[in-house]
């Protein structure tokens, strides 16, 4: 039942990171065989495609890499790995030129023909490059075409389930997959493997990422013994659509621009409340608005479905319908009137800053394994600026391709067959149990994480959450999946998804417990202060022999120290006009 396959460079995932890696790897090593394996169809899954806002890049005219870098560090509350953040800002400039000139993207222009850059909250320059509000579709479609038109081997609907180390301990041998269409196992050896499965905090009741993202990558890395950093850092987007538990629309993003344009948030009593929390009102940053909404919900000031309302009608329904055409149409398709009525919203888990510890060349502690994109930790610290996500995945995907092309030279490594067998055994586990409905367990996990490890956290809540996650995980191990057919058996994959989510949920909650202050996206009601900046630490989680250990490591201020700046003397603090 196990098929074996060899390649030189293997890439997991086809988001911005995976596709860029494929292009760069092939350019760097034209003779190497490049394989891209993905849980869905190439280019049609993952979150890069869903990018609406845009891509942060310093293109001059008063903006600079230094300024972008300072915004990233301050936005991340001094937790980012500074070398990674610097490379992100510096290489974004090259990557955007590459996207335009080589990949064929077309970003919106100013009337004079130069690239248009718009404002994104929390930045001191309007630097977000975009294509309408569908930037991700433009980026991924163009990348996808480039990859599809090259001789890159495609393993579509192949789900990675295990990183298999070499027998001799010299590094990674390859990756074990389930060929989802047949249900069979396939082991692919490679000289270099990029993990770019995009994380995805979908263990929360409300979440934005695509359905295929369930933390598989981080769960595999954890089992392989790799250290994960900043795992407590889950970013919530303040306005996810709230349409009921039965629909997949719930949790999807209503764009930031609605608040920026003057939209009102109203509580259950249909009263504005944001000014009670921040002087900027609805225009406050994501984390503040999310917490304010959450606080209203806890005060039982919620709308009927348990959230708050966003209301645009006072801006003139026609104006709204024209300015936010896509959003209004999307709401209308689902039966809501965004332009003229009120739509229920709720904070929704959006992005996971935590991930595998890597160096700025995407290498990990396991030779042969590289990690890029949302799976990698470090670049954003405790908070990701809007527009830095896709910059991160495309920059580091490209870096990974270059580095793998140069380093995938030796011989293929033979796998540790015992671990290979164990991983197959692990994935086949549910077939030995009595079939049940794992969907109910997923709901339970999502409720537990939302309530106890969500927008606002406390020690007691987190402890309760951890207990629930363990309980749900244990129940899952007793729940089986019908074995009549393994081909395209989504229920099996639901089980595996939930297994990954349980594993990583535990880490998120443990890391949140370990951080006894509030930074960026992480807010502890019992430790509301941000703590001393000079002694900032990040959390580091590793699993050994099934035991999770969460420690702390000091942030190395390799480029700039708290209180200092890399901006030249006399540069203004911000170049964005106050609202």
């Amino acid at each position, binding site marked *: 039942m196990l098929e074996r396959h060899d390649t030189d460079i293997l890439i997991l995932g086809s988001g911005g990171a995976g596709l860029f890696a494929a292009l760069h790897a092939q350019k760097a090593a034209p003779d190497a065989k490049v394989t891209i394996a993905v849980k869905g*169809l190439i280019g049609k899954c993952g979150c890069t495609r869903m990018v609406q806002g845009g891509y942060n890049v310093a293109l001059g005219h008063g903006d600079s890499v230094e300024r972008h870098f300072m915004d990233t560090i301050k936005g991340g509350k001094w937790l980012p790995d500074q070398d990674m953040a610097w490379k992100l800002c510096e290489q974004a400039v090259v990557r955007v030129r590459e996207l335009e000139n080589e990949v*064929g993207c077309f970003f919106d222009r100013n009337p004079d023909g130069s690239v248009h850059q718009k404002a994104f909250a929390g930045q001191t320059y309007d630097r977000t490059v975009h294509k309408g509000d*569908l930037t991700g579709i433009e980026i991924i479609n163009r990348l996808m075409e*480039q990859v599809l038109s090259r001789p890159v081997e495609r393993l579509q609907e192949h789900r990675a389930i295990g990183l298999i180390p070499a027998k001799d301990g010299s590094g990674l041998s390859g990756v074990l997959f389930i060929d989802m269409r047949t249900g069979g196992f396939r082991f692919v050896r490679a000289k270099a493997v990029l993990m770019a499965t995009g994380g995805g905090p979908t263990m929360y009741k409300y979440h934005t990422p695509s*359905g295929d993202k369930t933390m598989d990558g981080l769960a595999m890395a954890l089992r392989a013994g790799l250290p994960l950093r900043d795992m407590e850092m889950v970013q919530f987007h303040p306005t996810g659509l709230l349409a*009921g538990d039965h*629909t997949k629309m719930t949790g999807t993003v209503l764009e930031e621009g609605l608040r920026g344009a003057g939209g009102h948030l109203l509580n259950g009593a249909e009263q504005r409340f944001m000014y009670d929390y921040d002087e900027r009102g609805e225009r406050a940053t994501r984390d503040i608005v999310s917490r304010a909404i959450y606080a209203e919900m806890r005060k039982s000031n919620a709308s009927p479905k348990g959230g708050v309302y966003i209301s645009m009608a006072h801006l003139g329904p026609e104006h709204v319908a024209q300015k936010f055409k896509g959003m209004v149409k999307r709401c209308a398709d689902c*039966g809501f009137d965004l332009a003229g009525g009120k739509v229920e919203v709720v904070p929704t888990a959006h992005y996971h800053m935590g991930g595998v510890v890597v160096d700025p060349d995407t290498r990990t502690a396991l030779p042969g394994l590289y990690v890029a994109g949302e799976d990698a930790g470090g670049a954003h610290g405790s908070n990701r600026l809007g527009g830095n996500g896709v910059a991160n995945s495309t920059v580091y995907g490209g870096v990974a391709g270059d580095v793998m092309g140069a380093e995938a030279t030796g011989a293929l490594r033979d796998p540790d067959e015992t671990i290979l067998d164990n991983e197959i055994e692990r994935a086949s586990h549910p077939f030995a149990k009595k079939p049940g409905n794992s969907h109910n367990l997923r709901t339970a996990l999502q409720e537990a994480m939302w309530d106890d490890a969500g927008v606002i956290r406390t020690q007691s809540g987190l402890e309760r959450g951890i207990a629930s996650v363990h309980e749900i995980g244990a129940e899952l191990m007793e729940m089986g999946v019908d074995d009549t057919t393994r081909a395209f*058996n989504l*229920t099996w994959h639901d089980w595996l998804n939930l297994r990954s989510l349980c594993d990583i949920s535990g880490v998120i909650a443990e890391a949140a417990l370990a951080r006894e202050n509030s930074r960026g996206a992480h807010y502890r009601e019992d430790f509301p202060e941000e703590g001393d900046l000079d002694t900032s630490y990040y959390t580091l989680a590793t699993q050994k022999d099934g035991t999770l250990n969460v420690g702390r490591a000091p942030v190395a201020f390799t480029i700039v120290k708290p209180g200092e700046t890399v901006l030249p003397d006399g540069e203004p603090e911000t170049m964005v006009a106050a609202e």
Partner: protein
Amino acid sequence: MSDDASLKVSVWRGAEAGSFETFDVPMQESQTVLDLVAWVQQNADPTLAYRYACRVGMCGSCAMMVNGVPRWTCRTHVSKVAKDGTVEIAPLRNLPVIKDLAVDMDPFFDKWTAAGGAFSPTKSRDDTVEPILPETPERREADAAIECINCAVCYAACDVVSVNPDYLGPAALNRAWSLVNDVKDGALDARLTAVSGAGGCHNCHSQQGCVAHCPNELNPTASIAGLKRATVRAALKGRI
């Protein structure tokens, strides 16, 4: 709508050969066709296969035939399609069925590539981004065709695709037209040759099912007409 009400949902089971199976699915206030399918898989028949990713109309992986019409299911409200409390859901037309509601989209993307659907650069990352005036006629044409999510709804709606296996189809040709108007692209004649073969743009009969069903309101017919003009001009000048 009361929670007790239910819909009769007929779902295609099997591959090319198969049959419809009917399920009673509880009706809810905000419910999409994709939600119906997911409900069946999660609550009634765990072996049902289908595909989705983004759930908001961006990835183009959830398209199916709903009551015989191709649609993106994640953004099709049930109330829009339910007839007398029934909905029939089948895999997308014109593509090989893998299982149940999931089709093999490779032929669709192979044709995207065959139509010259990939940009061909004239500059590199070392050059600055080209200033392009957004209001030129070329750019407007390119932009009008660009927001395609490659969902293959148009491909399923087109009868030429069904009867002419070589036909590149509306989406691929629409993409080619966008590139023909892209002043940055350097492979104009190669692309015009690619869309002039046995399955090229000249095989389109302007049925306009593609336009009628494209969920993003794109107009492949107009794009294909543009290609017909461009290829004729190139042929008259002896370039292709």
